[in-house]
């Protein structure tokens, strides 16, 4: 049996093999840019920080393996789509039903951050805190009761003796102001 060399054929170039995969440095850059947002998305779907981490890892593993097939301008959408599929697969495996995920998404994050991430986050939190303090008192109360005290809107309406629609309106107006502060770049 003749070897490819004896047959005059070139051996596959290692560089050519590498071209079939995305550069790990590029994947690392994508992780830095989109990792936090993807993790938040996965927490929103799975309501569990550990499972979200698992799905995130699977997403970027796929990015290394087949990320080169995605177009550069749509790589973010591609990552989110892969993350969605990974999350749904986990939910099917874990048999996570709707009732079990009817808890606040952000209370299930359970993640640790690097110190440099903390600095950025604390700047954002500081802006949000300022916005929270400047909300009208009635809106501030609803926000605290829903997001911080984790009471449902129905319970809040009952405790404050208000119609449910009023509570929802106050929450929605407050959220608009809070999101505006959150989105501001320092």
């Amino acid at each position, binding site marked *: 049996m003749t070897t490819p060399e004896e047959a005059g054929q070139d051996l596959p170039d290692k560089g050519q093999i590498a071209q079939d995969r995305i550069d790990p440095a590029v994947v690392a850059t994508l992780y830095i840019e989109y990792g*936090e*947002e*993807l993790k*938040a*998305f996965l*927490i*929103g*779907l799975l*309501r569990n920080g550990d499972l979200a981490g698992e799905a995130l890892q699977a997403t970027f593993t796929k990015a290394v393996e087949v990320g080169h097939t995605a177009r550069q301008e749509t790589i*973010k*959408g591609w990552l*989110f*789509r892969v993350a*969605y599929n990974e999350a749904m697969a986990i939910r099917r495996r874990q048999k996570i039903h*709707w009732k079990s*995920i*009817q*808890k*606040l*998404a*952000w*209370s299930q*994050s359970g993640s640790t951050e690097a110190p440099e991430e903390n600095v950025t*986050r604390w700047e*954002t*939190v*500081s802006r*949000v*805190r300022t916005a*929270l*303090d400047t909300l009208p008192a009635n809106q501030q109360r609803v*926000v*605290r009761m*829903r*997001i*911080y005290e984790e009471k*449902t*809107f129905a319970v809040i309406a009952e405790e404050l003796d208000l119609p449910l629609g009023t509570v929802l309106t106050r929450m*929605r107006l407050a*959220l*608009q102001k*809070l*999101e505006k502060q*959150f*989105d501001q770049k320092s």
Partner: protein
Amino acid sequence: MSKPISEELSWQAFLYACGEMPPEDAEAFEESLAVDQAAREALAHAVLVGQAVTTAAAATDPIAVPVTGGPQRRSLARSAALVAGLLLAFGVGWVVSQSWNVAQPDGSVDIADDSSVTDFDANQLISLWGNVGLLGETESDLAWGDEDEQESQSILAAGLVDDDSTTEFNVPAWMLAAVENNLPPEMEDDMRNPNRIP
């Protein structure tokens, strides 16, 4: 973010993240996540804002960390901490008195070089202090307050007012046994004769 998220989509994502969507609406929203990048980013955004608001609200809350167990358990914990502190003070006082007895003008014993004595006392003190930590209370729970002052007065009063007038307060037997049985031989000698020249 790719492009601004519409306010309606942002609100829907928030309701979904809260778990406040009816099941059929939530299912429809999830189906949209399969194809709609704006919906995905809206969900991520809602979670991030929720996290930021939770952190911000916790920072301004005067009682940020809820203490489990209720006031009764905290009161018992503080009483136990008080007793442990008194025992610790007793132990420290004993050590100081012993070092004073030993370090007489003739300088017969350099207590600093007698590591067995130092280690013995340090271990006993550490075990006394460690018992406070086993209660699982935080430093803030052990902070001294007005109710603690009243409590301490009642405990001290209970300890001093005793039918048995020979004792000022009850020291556990194990403590006394540990002190009596674990003295190194030279310490026993020193206790009998502080002016002993080695």
